[in-house]
């Protein structure tokens, strides 16, 4: 299991015109901050996720924002045309010590193979806070069914 997500940023700092994520490295983040144009929204958080050309299970960095209720997960939030049409298994994981994680929401709760490919498609799911809870460290675990080298945007929008 490896880490292939960038730092989390607020969604208001993502300007679509500059979000040429196919050319971006996994750890790049984009500016500028809110400037009156090019801002796609002010709610939520995003990270870049590099699908590293294999089908191993990879993870994002832990959320650096509080979870106090349900939240929406958007996978491939900008509908990038990925270089290979792949499905993803996505779970939400939690940890107390920051190193040992357990699934809080399974792939059937978030995204799984049978939900179809993410190629040019935004996939969304809602994390059920009442049913699944929260832990000090939370992150997404992502497993691709088909190897892809594309970089996608993952968004978390707290409700």
């Amino acid at each position, binding site marked *: 299991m490896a880490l292939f997500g960038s730092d989390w940023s607020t969604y208001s700092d993502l300007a679509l015109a500059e979000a040429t994520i196919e050319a971006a490295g996994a750890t790049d983040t984009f500016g500028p901050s809110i400037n009156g144009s090019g801002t796609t929204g002010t709610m939520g958080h995003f990270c870049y996720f590099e699908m590293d050309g294999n089908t191993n299970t990879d993870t994002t960095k832990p959320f650096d924002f509080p979870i106090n209720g349900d939240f929406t997960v958007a996978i491939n939030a900008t509908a990038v045309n990925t270089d290979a049409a792949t499905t993803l298994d996505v779970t939400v994981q939690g940890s107390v*010590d920051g*190193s*040992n994680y*357990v699934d809080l929401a*399974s792939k059937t709760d978030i995204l799984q193979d049978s939900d179809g490919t993410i190629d040019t498609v935004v996939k969304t799911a809602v994390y059920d*806070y009442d049913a699944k*809870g*929260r*832990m000090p460290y939370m992150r997404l675990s992502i497993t691709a069914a088909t190897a892809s080298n594309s970089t996608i945007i993952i968004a978390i929008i707290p409700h």
Partner: protein
Amino acid sequence: MSIFQDNTNVYKNDGTWHSSPWQPFYHKMVSRYIDETSGDSLQLKMWCCEPEWEGTELYIEAAHATSTGGDILTRVSYPGDTLANAEGDDYKLGTQDTGKLTSEEAHDDRTVKHWFAPGVALQLPDGTHATSTITQTTKWSYTPTSNDIGEKIYDGGVHCWMKFPYNTVASSSTDAQTYVYSKPFPMEYVGNSDILLVWNSFGHQVRREVNTLDVNTSISLEREISYMDNPGSGDWTVKGAGGIIMNDVDVEDFTGDGVTGVNDKFMIRNMMALMEGVKNTRLKMYIPDGSFTEARLLRSQFIRVSLYPINPKS
């Protein structure tokens, strides 16, 4: 709220030490390597996260045991090389039986550990050989200092340590040795909210006793409730709906989903609902007499249990 409030000897085999008090915080884990004090050259990676161990010498001894075909940690004790507070159950460096766990999961390049005391863990160096690392009696001494214990974290949850049962239900041991209980949940922190329970939140690598062959090792975990203000031992009952948290779960089989079976970190989580209307809640853990002959678990094992109230009601 001392971890030694029930007994200063956490290895006491009469069942008087079951669990530590719940605490609304934890200390981050900090590690350091220690060299052996005598015997073979082998560093251990030590972890400590309980300030009460500060200044106490923890002693670890290993040997090569021909009879069991492997290298074994034969004793842990404190303070120092004393038999007063000691656990002599053997921790085998290699596999315990064909198809069963190896200690590799608790090597120092992994995240799971061997918590051999409440708040103290060790990891073997990556590549430690199962049968040829230890050639002679080898000893280590570890005395945690304040620098070995990380910062205090108030994370919104409450946490305790629980020891695995001394023996199985079918062993004819006393109830105190067979059934392990947590302290009642601190209602001032968790209230009557739904609670996310995390069993083994600090990633202990579960092991069974060293020489059991082809038998199952499982754990049952139940939620017990009481409507009494100060319940005695006979005032508890298993919660009806939702009271069975783990039912005869093979806790060595770490291929589960973390809900019905332990995951690759030996963890399980459970959302406890219907908390309203009870005065007290606690956890009961035991090794059931299932459809197989059950083996007991290694005795020097302590797991962290964490509770996170969800939707606190004001």
